[in-house]
């Protein structure tokens, strides 16, 4: 699975990682029993502090999506893959509408976040 972070984003790095893993599990890219890369290796590859990665792993553990085991690292325990096809279809429509309205990805994300908080 691809782990990616955007250094220009306002979202804290650990939260970006948490979102990635959540999404990976929901999409079925990460299955139960699969191992996440060791925190140090992921930190080095993404040029970020190992504690930031560990912070993300702890959040995921508290959400019940992964288990942290000594010696075995982070193992996915999360729920089985959810059906995201409706969300993906709606997203396509949203992206198209946002492009037509010449909204930036940031502005669109803000709108989406506000809508979801309502």
């Amino acid at each position, binding site marked *: 699975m691809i*782990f990616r*972070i*955007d*250094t220009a984003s306002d979202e804290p790095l650990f939260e970006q990682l948490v979102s990635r893993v959540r999404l990976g599990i929901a999409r079925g890219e990460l299955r139960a029993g699969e191992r996440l890369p060791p925190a140090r*290796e992921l930190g080095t*590859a*993404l*040029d970020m502090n190992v504690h930031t990665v560990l912070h993300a792993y702890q959040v995921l553990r508290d959400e019940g999506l992964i288990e942290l085991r000594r010696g075995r690292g982070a193992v996915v325990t999360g729920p089985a893959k959810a059906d995201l096809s409706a969300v993906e279809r709606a997203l396509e429509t949203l992206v198209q509408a946002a492009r037509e309205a010449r909204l930036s990805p940031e502005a669109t994300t803000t709108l989406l976040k506000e809508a979801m908080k309502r």
Partner: protein
Amino acid sequence: MTHTLADVWKPRARRVTAWSALAGLAILLAGLAIALSWRAELPDQVASHWGPGGAPDEFMPVEAFAGVMLGTGALCIAVLGAIGLLLGRSASTLRLAAGLTVWISGMLSAMTLISLSAQRGLADAAQTPFSGSDLVLAMLVPAVPGVVAALLVPRDRAVPAEAAVPADALRLGLSQDERAVWFARATGGSGLVVGGGAIALTTVIAVVTGTWALLAVPALLLPATVATFVFVVRVDTEGLTVRSALGWPGTHVPADEVVRADVVDVHPLRQFGGWGWRVGLAGQVGVVLRGGQGLRVEQTGGRSLVVTVDDARDAAALLNTMAERARTPGR
């Protein structure tokens, strides 16, 4: 330069094949010379094969025995030499060929000498004792010079790609501020089953027959199976890294040497003649653990690497993107 870029690997392949073949032959001939120097003390017919009960069941003159050893060794050296000369594009392939050449020659010499030295002074070769631990030693000790030979092979020279990543190669939409890494585990179902089966079988045989020296086989097979059939694969700014779950063996393709990366359909038997760490018919190195989807990386110097992973599309797209970044200084 008389070599085209595609031929740059050939001089090194010739040199490595030459010295490893000479070393192997020297080891065989030394074993032969020592064996023949014992001729006067050996029975007319020496034991050359031992049955399952530990008693010798085949006999031949010492000259014939030594000749079989030399012939077998020469054949192995010729086959491994041909692999090095024809397919040795990557350092890893040459390491394998040179290491095996020296190891197998050493093993043949050592086995011949160990079985003959037990027969010195015997009137009748039928009394020759069989020592399992000696046999294990004869297999393991020559691995040391084998590893040394493998390490003597010069590493691949850095050959940065000059041309841009082709436009039709997969890409990942990654902005300037984004960082990304792709991780996967490559495992081989059939390889693990065969390895596990062999470990269980040899353990049972060793326990049932009480041949304790035979336990060395599963003890060696266990790490060998893990080392050959479980790999961690990573794509990041540095390029592609393929590493066994044990940490060794492994290989790395630097991002600036990636010509292009693609998704391919892998047929282990047809393309690589089997599973595991393989060398294909076109000299491509394969970490082939199962059939189906795989990532193929074409590297400068005519080298290429195939790894069987799920999700190879993302890996290829990210690797091409990283290769492109590596070609743009300041990024």
